[in-house]
């Protein structure tokens, strides 16, 4: 077996192993979460949700593979047992699932985007995102459509039902999603190859993250102004009624942000009316913190010669596991 073949197979094995271990840890944390836990920052929840796949990729890419290439002698005969082959198959299955979900999400989003007859909406001044506004006939509510290149779709019925102030703050909510790249994040979460996504704990975490992103977008749209908060709450209730009673289309992709989400309506309106939607004062640079701590951890691991231990552990597992 060539070094390349063993590298690929053992990388898949380690990906599945780390993925399973981190998924189990996150699953324990996620069991206590609820969509009412909107005080949690969306960044932290997203980090937790993506932790299993990210940790697996980082471990394989920065610890296992370099160690394997460094310490493994080319041409060493290797034979993999049932457990290692099962772990390899698990990673392949997760990757296939992720790929299929990615293709489905892209196809669905593209098809929906093309099927909606929209026209630019330019009668109201909406700042730098004005070019991203489109009005759609017969569409209920508002949506942020697309994955990378996004447009804010405003249904004609919603435009007619909302006052100018309500419409402005509702659009500001979608603009907040757009600036935060929330559709792209939804896409990544939807397609991430991990075991956590197959569990109720993982789905609970996704719901909590979704609730937190909605509340954060509300807070950014409102910008601490009670009058804007009431207008946004009013817009939410009006759009909810529209979706209930109107015969218009209620379209949306799994990776689009939608203004009206029935499960979150009450929480959001109560937060807005109760003044709990003010943006947090402290914004931690979560990504930078995680990246730096990861870099420090990796440096420590290499200095402590842990990759060599991982290599020896791998060799032992190949010999010992059935």
């Amino acid at each position: 077996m060539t070094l390349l073949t063993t590298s690929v197979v053992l990388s898949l094995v380690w990906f599945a192993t780390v993925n399973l271990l981190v998924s189990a840890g996150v699953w324990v944390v996620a069991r206590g979460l609820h969509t009412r836990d909107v005080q949690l920052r969306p960044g932290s929840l997203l980090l937790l949700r993506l932790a299993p796949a990210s940790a697996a990729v980082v471990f394989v890419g920065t610890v296992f593979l370099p160690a394997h290439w460094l310490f493994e002698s080319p041409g060493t005969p290797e034979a993999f047992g049932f457990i290692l082959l099962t772990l390899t198959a698990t990673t392949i299955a997760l990757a296939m699932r992720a790929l299929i979900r990615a293709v489905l999400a892209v196809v669905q989003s593209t098809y929906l985007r093309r099927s909606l007859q929209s026209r630019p909406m330019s009668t109201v001044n909406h700042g730098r995102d004005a070019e991203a506004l489109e009005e759609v006939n017969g569409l209920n509510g508002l949506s942020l459509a697309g994955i990378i290149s996004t447009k804010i779709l405003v249904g004609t019925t919603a435009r007619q039902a909302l006052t100018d102030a309500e419409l402005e703050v509702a659009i500001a909510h979608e603009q907040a999603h757009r600036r935060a790249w929330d559709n792209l994040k939804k896409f990544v979460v939807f397609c991430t190859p991990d075991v956590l996504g197959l569990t109720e704990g993982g789905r609970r975490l996704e719901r909590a993250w979704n609730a937190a992103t909605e509340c954060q977008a509300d807070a950014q749209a409102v910008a601490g102004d009670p009058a804007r908060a009431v207008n946004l709450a009013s817009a939410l209730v009006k759009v909810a009624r529209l979706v209930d009673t109107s015969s218009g289309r209620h379209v949306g992709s799994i990776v689009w942000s939608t203004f009206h989400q029935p499960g979150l309506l009450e929480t959001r309106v109560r937060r807005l009316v109760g003044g709990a939607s003010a943006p947090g004062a402290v914004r931690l640079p979560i990504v930078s913190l995680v990246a730096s701590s990861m870099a420090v951890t990796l440096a420590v691991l290499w200095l402590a010669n842990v990759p060599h231990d991982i290599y020896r552990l791998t060799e032992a597992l190949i010999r010992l596991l059935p």
Partner: protein
Amino acid sequence: MLKGLRPVNWLRGSRDPLHAALGRLEREVMDVVWAGREQAVRDVQTRLPRPVAYTTVMTTLDRLYKKGLVIRRREGRAFVYTAIYSQDEMAASLTSNLLEGLLASGSAAARPFLSNLVDAVSAEDKELLDELERLVRDKREQLRNGPR
């Protein structure tokens, strides 16, 4: 026996008929009432899992009283409330009422009923929307009048 309950919506994601037959706040209030013995409005309000106005809790308890789900007696100036049926008794009653009605009506008569259930899946809880609209209106009014 049980008056004024919403049609049981089995397709709303819950297997609990009580969850489907009562409004969300009604269900939460009933959960609190079931958890204790006699409780005043203030007791129920403080034990709810989310902040709800005192008057909203009072109205909800009054509605549950009119539906025949709780009894009340005056204690001093306030009412104290107790559940008439246990949680299991009420769930069993709702389930059997629904099934008896459906089976007795025959397949043709059951079709519109089932169709309504499906329609109701996408329908927002009107009662909840009314309550939220009232909240928004009150807050708007409060802002208009300035801080008291």
